[in-house]
């Protein structure tokens, strides 16, 4: 029986963890299987959660979030017969599969979309916890914005420096209102559960927002420009499907293998014109083909299009 552990923020964060949850659910529906799940409440529980699931015979054990990296490094050797999969982090152990995403690519696309939709020439980015991973989102986004409109202003804010930043909708809403006051009329939230507040505030204030990880367009129909899809669901689904035969190693998911993308559905159809979509799709093709390379912040901790 496979198991999944959701990071702080919880499986119904409408975003990152929920994507993972959806993947697990899809597997359960398709196969009729059952799985164990666990939500983290605080930092100190991670190790116990991993050990408990492994000890109870769960296999594979999938976890979402970079924060598991350290404890997984410690726990994995103690359970050589159990397979683990971790999203967003590379853990170099023989029984661990590490899934990482090219979030900068997806963010680039929604950045373009933001710049195309913006009337003020100012767009916003609200990240969750201030870590290189989230800067990678922001950097990709800024590159996309600048690619469309080199004069555009990108207002960047991070919600916090601790995992609490993943689940602070109040702060998300206040930051969104602050960015609006600075002229932003499209805001990209890459902040897990905090994004709920961002999207809500943007809808309240009558500006556009961009969701992240899951398709969040439905949350405020007609007010969410698009969502940067990060197919954590696919990662979880795949891991569950592979089951006990999970292949260890690093799995990079990008535009080319549908690991990231942007969301189009009836909720945002009215917001995205055909020209906009065409421009974005063209860029996507270039990225897939390697013709266009989006700078990855985490490769050298710098960003050509924005300063953090």
């Amino acid at each position: 029986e496979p198991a999944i552990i959701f990071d702080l923020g919880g499986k119904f964060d409408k975003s990152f963890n929920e994507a993972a949850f959806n993947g697990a659910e899809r597997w359960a529906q398709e196969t009729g299987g059952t799985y164990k799940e666990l939500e983290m409440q605080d930092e100190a529980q991670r190790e116990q959660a991993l050990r408990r699931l492994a000890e109870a015979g769960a296999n594979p054990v999938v976890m979402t979030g970079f924060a598991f990296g350290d404890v997984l490094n410690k726990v994995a050797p103690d359970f050589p017969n159990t397979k683990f999969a971790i999203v967003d982090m590379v853990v170099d152990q023989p029984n661990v599969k590490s899934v990482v995403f090219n979030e900068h690519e997806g963010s680039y696309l929604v950045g373009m979309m933001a710049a195309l939709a913006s009337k003020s020439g100012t767009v916003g980015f609200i990240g969750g916890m201030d870590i290189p991973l989230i800067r990678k989102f922001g950097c990709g986004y800024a590159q996309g914005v600048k690619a469309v409109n080199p004069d555009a202003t990108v207002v960047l804010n991070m919600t916090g420096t601790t995992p609490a930043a993943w689940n602070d909708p109040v702060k998300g809403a206040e930051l969104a209102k602050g960015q609006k006051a600075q002229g932003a009329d499209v805001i990209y939230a890459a902040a897990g559960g905090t994004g709920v507040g961002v999207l809500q505030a943007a809808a309240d204030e009558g500006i556009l927002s961009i969701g992240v990880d899951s398709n969040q367009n439905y949350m405020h129909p007609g007010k969410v420009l698009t969502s940067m899809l990060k197919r954590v669901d696919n990662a979880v689904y795949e891991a569950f499907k592979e089951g006990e035969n999970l292949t260890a190693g690093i799995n990079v998911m990008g535009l080319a293998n549908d690991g990231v993308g942007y969301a189009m559905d009836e909720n945002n159809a009215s917001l995205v014109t055909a020209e906009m979509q065409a421009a974005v799709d063209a860029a996507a093709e270039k990225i897939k083909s390697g013709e266009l390379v989006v700078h990855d912040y985490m490769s050298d901790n710098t960003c050509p299009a924005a300063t953090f």
Partner: protein
Amino acid sequence: MDYATLLQILDSSLRLATPLLFACLAGLYSERAGIFDIGLEGKMLMAAMASASVAFLTGSVWAGLFAGMLASLMLAGIHGIASITFRGNQLISGVALNFVASGITVLVAQRLFGQGGRTPPLEGDARFTPIILPLAEELRGVPVLGPLYAEVISGHPLLVYVALLAVPVTWWVLYRTRFGLRLRAVGENPAAVDTAGISVKGLRFAAVAITGILCGLAGAYMATALQAGFGREMTAGRGYIALAALIFAKWRPVAALWACLLFGFFQALALRPDVVEAVVQVKVPVPFLDALPYVLTVLVLAGFVGKAIPPRAGGEPYVKER
């Protein structure tokens, strides 16, 4: 910092000060009557959960508001029974109820909605929406004051104005009515009230009930106005900040307003470290901004910023003696 940024921060301060203000006034009634209440946090949380749940289920924010007050009243009732009827330790009772609320809100929300202790997002009539005050747009052009009026004063949900109104009302009740006189007396010397032929228990229960109602408003504001729904631990220590503000204000209603606005301002600043950095020219770590209200309260308690003398009978259960 430009004027627009200032306005934006002030606007944000007011929004963030509102739950503090409700909770602070709530604590004021209770503590003025001699019942310490560190369970403001729990009551807010309970109210937030109840109001969001009911607002979602009925689609009416008013039903939600009512449910929030009811839930908060329930906890207040338990606190009253423990500390008034059974003369238990008020501090311990408050601590205990905070824990109970912290857990039970998640259990109930999980049971109702199965979303890991959240309520689904509220929409439309299930939320309080901003009210544009008369002439806000027309006056926007007036220099300095116009934008202040339009941005900061106008455009908040009803409950913000209710909270502001609650300050003069509280002052008036406390200092101009019979109930207020008795309330203040029972917090200072319950024996005086008792020998004057007034029920100490009755008064204290009344005070605790008002505390419940105001905490209910605080929680409902959090869940149905500031945000659109309930999430676990969403009050995030605001009950304690309100308590700090109450001490900072030395248990006086008008001072409570300023204290809450100040602490709201700190919270708003903590959201905008970039602005703080721009103003003071050094990078101030966010944790320092977060800790500011607590540090200030300690300084007040220490008597460095004026001595805070709590109501004299506060925390002591009233036992009839000759």
